[in-house]
């Protein structure tokens, strides 16, 4: 019973990640509001990160895989034995890096969105387009002190 249900559940998880990615991409490109775009972008990167963790997971013949932490220091064979039953720690390290980068990018985008709201009074890209199309006049670059 459990032998056949584990691959089934893992497939369900994988498919839900992919569906999540597609929905997030729809949100990024189709929603007009910048705030919703940013929310969709965080969903997108979180789905990617979960997928990366998922790739590091492995089924160890009917057992729950161990976390990749060495606890038995005294046994010299400890790390070698752990490597046989533990999940892969490297995708977790990659995801950690990706999360930190994602945090920086999200903060930056939130800040720019606030600034857009201050200048234009809206965060809808459709309205932004209309406003920018309206005042087409030559805006000089800020070269004058």
């Amino acid at each position, binding site marked *: 019973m459990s032998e056949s249900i584990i691959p089934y559940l893992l497939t369900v998880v994988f498919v839900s990640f992919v569906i999540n990615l597609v929905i997030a*991409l729809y949100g*990024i490109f189709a929603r007009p509001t*910048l705030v919703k*775009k*940013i929310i969709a*972008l965080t969903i*997108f*990167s979180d789905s*990617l990160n979960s*997928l*990366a963790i998922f*790739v590091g997971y492995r089924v160890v013949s009917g057992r729950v895989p161990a976390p990749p932490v060495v606890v038995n220091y005294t046994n010299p064979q400890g790390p070698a034995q752990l490597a046989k039953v533990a999940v892969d720690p*490297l*995708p977790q390290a*990659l995801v950690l*890096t*990706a999360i930190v*980068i*994602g945090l*920086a*990018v999200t903060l*930056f*985008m939130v800040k*720019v*969105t606030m*600034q*857009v709201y201050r*200048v*234009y009074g809206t965060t809808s*890209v459709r309205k*932004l387009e209309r*406003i*920018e199309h309206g005042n087409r006049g*030559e*805006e*000089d*670059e*800020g*070269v*004058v*002190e």
Partner: protein
Amino acid sequence: MDVNVFVGILPLYLIAAAFALPVFTLFIKDRRFFEGYGIVAAGIALVISAKVFMDVTREGIQKYYFGGFPPPLGIAYEVDKMGALLGLVASLIVFITTVYSAWFMRVKGVEWYYALLLGIEAGSVGVLYTGDFFNIFVMLEVLSISAYGLVSFYRWRGKSLSASIEYAIVGSVATGLYFLAVVFLYGAFGTLNLADLTAKAMSDGGYVNQWSGGLFGNAVVASAVALALTMWTITFKSAIFPNYFWLPDVVPEAPTPVSAIFVAVAEVLGVYLFVRFMYTVFSPQSLLSGELRTYFLVFLHILGIVSAFIGALVLNIQSDAKKFIAYSTVNQMGFVFMGLTLGTKEGVVAGLYHLLSNSFGEALLFYCVGVAIWLKGRSLTDAGVLRRNPVIAAGLVVGLLNLFGLPPFMGFFSKYMLFKACLDRGYIVSAVLILVITGISLIGYARFLRGLLSGPSEAVRGRNLIVPLIIVAFITAVIVLLGVGFEYVIHYLNGVVKMAFNSGTYAMNGVYPP
């Protein structure tokens, strides 16, 4: 393990220099200090990259292992001739741009500007030097975040802000997809090291590393999916057809010196990653050798043609000089990708040569247009004001003729090489299309020339032009020299491409024990 310290120190030094700069704002308020800091920091980086370039030319592939871990374990940096050459070009352009910025930027807050400029250089040099494809992701993000910040540098202008947020959203999706590709490759190959990946892809499971093991699952499907995802990032970075739309929105809204970096440095990375992934890692001898690889190349070849077409057509109706240069870049990068996707050494040589012509040519145009913006404005007819300074006007003429492709400049020889490479490969239609597209773009370049020659020459503002004059003269000299001495350049580029195609050497140099 013989390592070259300069390889490892350059990206770290640039990041340290970028982060240290804001600290000085606590006790120094003088703009000139930050200008000097930027110029000196970029100058040191230029010297180091020149040293790496000479070492690679003299002794072959240079390596550096962070933390001393043997290669597949830690982060390894591995520089071959292509990385060293493009790294030298990138740091040269960034150095020139910092000097130009010291003349151009007269706004408050330049300290953040120079910090972000050094961040862009750190990211691009990191991508070009690294031998670890997760590190490529990190360095792409370093580059991207600095670039998003620089686009929104004029934070009181609504257009800059909306261009920046658009670029940031689409750019994060592109780098996110590259991260997905990294995960797929790691899942199939069990490694993050490019040399290790190359060795495993070449031997198709025959090579088993003592640390990273062999292949897992269906490696062919995984690498095809990963490559398809990487292509999104590459076409985004190089502004190739479906992903070119950000460039004409972003480049005109960024400060002009930064626009020069966008078209001259950021574009280079897409080309580098393309050659690295399609020819070094997944070479014709690798597990991805069959029809799939051919489909990839033909598909991207068509995208290159479409991109060159769109660039040339839209070029003709522009009235804003910065938007004009942006579409000109789309046009030229389409040509570069037409060469790169031929699958022959000759094609890649032509593509790289055209890339150099594009980098120097478009940067030169931006430096000239920046002067026109200072003196008057940014429409094509405002370029007439440059007639007051014959050297800068001559520089603009050289830049335009180079991009259009007239002898004796680089653009002519690179388009000629491209034409010949297409014919040798048997792509007659592509060869004819190069001529047709060049003919279409003639209207646009001629309009810019007319604006320069017949536009009103009265300046609105006065300015001392000695700094841009020296810069424009220098880049003009580079374009003429690299065009006149094209036999030597082609000879060198042949060596570069030979090394990039030699997956065996790349893999042997990066895997420990060798």
